């Protein structure tokens, strides 16, 4: 068991190292300074980008694709819950039993939503046209990762498979499509800065 725990830990360290390298590489690039006079408020824009702007009703696209968007949110909740569950797995014996039931259901729902996403990528015409092999692999790998974590919290027989799949997932994060988890933050910050500065989001409903 310890070997597999160490393997997963090594995978986690490798993944974090890879993501840190990516972060450093992007930060090394030029960040254009904007000298145009501000009309709105940049910090309000960034706050909007991570809060109101993420609500399913905030955008026409998510209003149209509400189910797909909520599926994605549920899937990502599952991923982060699985990461948390794996990290604290050496201390599972100290956790109250009701937590395992909650974890099991959150992870099960996450895995089902992940699998739905994987199937959609194959079945839906637009998504099939957009998807790369990397996308298909990433969605099924993370689904498997959530599923393994979900099964492991209720059945010890799945703990070793969970560590093996976790290792692969962690190592793959900086290498493939999953690294968008890092760029999500960059992207929403730039979104908030751009539209906040120009008073588009949030947008004051008065003429100044």
């Amino acid at each position, binding site marked *: 068991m310890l070997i597999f725990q160490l393997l997963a830990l090594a995978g986690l360290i490798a993944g974090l190292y890879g993501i840190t390298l990516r972060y450093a590489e992007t930060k090394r690039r030029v960040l254009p300074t904007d000298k145009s006079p501000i009309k709105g408020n940049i910090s309000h824009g960034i706050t909007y980008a991570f809060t109101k702007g993420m609500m399913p009703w905030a955008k*026409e696209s*998510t209003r149209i694709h509400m189910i797909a968007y909520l599926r994605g949110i549920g899937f990502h909740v599952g991923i982060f819950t699985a990461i948390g569950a794996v990290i604290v797995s050496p201390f599972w014996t100290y956790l109250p039993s009701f937590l395992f039931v909650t974890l099991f259901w959150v992870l099960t729902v996450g895995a089902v939503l992940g699998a739905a996403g994987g199937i959609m990528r194959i079945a839906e015409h637009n998504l099939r046209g957009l998807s790369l092999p990397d996308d298909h692999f990433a969605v099924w790998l993370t689904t498997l990762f959530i599923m393994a974590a979900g099964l492991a919290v209720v059945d010890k027989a799945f703990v070793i498979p969970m560590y093996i799949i976790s290792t692969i997932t962690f190592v793959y994060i900086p290498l493939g499509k999953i690294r*968008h988890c890092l760029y*999500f933050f960059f992207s929403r910050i*730039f979104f908030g800065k751009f539209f906040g500065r120009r008073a*588009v989001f949030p947008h004051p409903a008065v003429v100044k």
Partner: protein
Amino acid sequence: MSETVELALKTLESQLNQPLETALEACARCGICAEACHYYRAEPKVEHIPAFRAEQLRSVYRHEHDFLSRLFPIWTRSKKLDESTLANLTEIAFSQCTLCRRCTVNCPLGVDTPLMMRAIRAMASAAGTAPEILVMLADAAIEKGKDPSFYKEMFLEQIKEMEEQLRDITGDPNAAIPVEKQGAKILYVPLAGAHTILPPAVVFNAAQEDWTLSIFEAANYGVFLADMKRAREVAKRIVDEANRLGVKEIVIAECGHAYASYRWDVPNWFAGEFDFKVRSLIEVLAEYIQEGKIQVDPTAIPEGVTYHDSCNLARNGGLIEEPRYVLSKITSDFREMTPSKAEAICCGGGGGLVALAEYADRRIAAGKPKADQIKNTGARVVVAACENCRLQIGDLNEHYNLDVRITALTDLVVRAMRLPKPLPGTEAEHLFEGEKVAVTDK
């Protein structure tokens, strides 16, 4: 590797800053952006999904910068840039994207696809594969800036004639169109054509503004090319003029890309030399009405009126409430399009598309969602505060039989000022015809 490809790649590298790399890396290819694009709405196919378009550049970027893609190109469909790929990228960036940023607003991650399209345009401009007409228009503007004396005399003659018209319209014998007035407060930068000079001149005179007219036009084709060198040179003419005259403020005519570039980009290109406030004529109109500097008749426009948000003015420029405030003071039947404001659908004429005759069919087809929006309002008058939008909506009007009149905001304001005579050669003149008797009675 050919010299063309080498230049394009070199330009991509030089463009690769934090926001661009983020845009290239962040996409999850969820496809949720599809309906945000007017091209997709008009013709739903995978190639019209913004994420698909961006993928074409990403595949090149990955080949250059991604470890896994270099080992297994098939895994991420990465590919080496060659002349045919560059031609395809150029075609996409100049004919299938108006840089409206509607996809960015609708992306759950906020991926800035227009930033990538701009990068492609810059690559094409550097490699010499960008549409020639845009290059020619930008270069002509630069040449004009080098020696304005060539056409200045003719321009001043035209202004003299316009002054006569101005006095005729306003009934004010002292009404004037000052050109190159030293120390004026405002430098007004028009577009090519009297229709962007005469109506603002009426307004500035009525407001007793201390203004002067620029001898250059606001349009900047270097911006459409994403060619920073050219765009800067075109803008420099006006920056130098403003510095020479010692004005405090530059007011841009009703033009989307000119406003967005002078308001939000030009201050970055001329750090230290640019100490002016930049406003759109729309903001000035709102201010004059708000402060009572011009008097307008709230019942002047009884017809159903709708407003088209230019992407550069609204979503990319933050001018959302100002035109609506003006319209609320001069119209009695204003009809909002759905969706509008920051979510407004692009008319299809932005990004320089109106100037590219070779893509006219595509442009008209992509304008269908806007035509449907206009039709749904049932309005008789469409106000657009951007010249390219007006040209595009004019084409849509004809093609989709919308039976509407398209007008600039200033023209309608002048009409609401109840002057002795209408503005010649504007849509507002046609609208004016119907009420001539009533005006004469007044």
